[in-house]
């Protein structure tokens, strides 16, 4: 089956399911949501960074999407639309919840001007697949993700975890495609800075020492 035909079939199924939901079939809605569950949770996590809150927001977003489905016009894919609702719900929670008082929502609107300079040139070659799951690597990754400003983390998650296109990412976040690219660059370079030197350099290329040369 060609990709085009497969896509056409998928679209038919999606629109058929939507039609069934609008006729009152709740099970059909669950079938629509099920393939998007992981994406919905990750989108909420990218903003809230707290699994319990992200789950609550994911549930609210899905219930909201259920009520709003008759107004869904199919201009975007259902999954993109659902993620957009999730992002909005997560941002709403940020504003309402005192816990997130110091996390400014305004930061979403502006991009830093100027260039980002890598902190060092640590030589981080290809990660051998057997080290991918090493506990200290995963923990370092988690810390690095947590230290990213929300506006960078959300773009990184949407692009590199959920593989949304640049255009879809811009759409769900309500920013320009240029901003998506700028934020993604910053996010990836900051993550590299946080991770490249490793804990002791040993997860990179087996070398016990890593090269650290500052350009200035």
């Amino acid at each position, binding site marked *: 089956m060609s990709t085009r035909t497969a896509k056409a079939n998928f679209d038919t199924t999606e629109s058929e399911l939507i039609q069934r939901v609008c006729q009152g079939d*709740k099970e059909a*809605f*669950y079938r629509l*949501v*099920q393939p998007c*569950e*992981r994406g919905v*949770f*990750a989108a909420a*996590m*990218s903003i809230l960074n707290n*699994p319990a809150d992200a*789950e609550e927001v*994911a*549930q609210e977003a*899905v*219930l909201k999407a*259920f009520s709003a489905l008759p107004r869904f016009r199919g201009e975007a894919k259902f999954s993109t639309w659902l993620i957009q609702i999730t992002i909005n719900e997560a941002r709403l929670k940020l504003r309402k919840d005192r816990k997130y008082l110091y996390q400014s929502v305004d930061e979403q609107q502006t991009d830093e001007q100027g*260039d*980002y*300079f*890598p902190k060092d*040139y*640590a*030589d*981080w*070659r*290809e*990660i051998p697949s057997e080290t*991918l*799951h090493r506990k200290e*690597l*995963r923990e370092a*990754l*988690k810390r690095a*993700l947590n230290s990213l400003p929300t506006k960078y983390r959300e773009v*990184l*998650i949407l692009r*590199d*975890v959920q593989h949304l296109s*640049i255009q879809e990412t811009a759409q769900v976040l309500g920013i320009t495609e240029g901003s998506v*690219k700028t934020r*993604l*660059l910053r996010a*990836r*370079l900051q*993550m*590299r800075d946080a*991770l*490249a030197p490793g804990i002791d350099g040993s997860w990179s290329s087996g070398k016990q020492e890593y*090269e650290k*040369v500052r*350009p200035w």
Partner: protein
Amino acid sequence: MKVIEISCLEVWREISNFLDGEADPEMRARMEAHFKVCAHCTAILDGTKNVVKLVGDGVEYQMPEGFSKRLYDKLKAK
């Protein structure tokens, strides 16, 4: 055709687009030529690739156990 040299700074600005295949062909050729002679930028390219690979498996964003069931129950109760 001679490829025009570019600076490390220009490479860093475009490195993410380069990985996503978003850099235009001319920029791409200039960057590829730069990587051949610049070990530092190559290290940054490799590191950035690793970030994309590591983050990409999504392990850090896996749903908590029972997530689907609780979501389904919420929907059913509505």
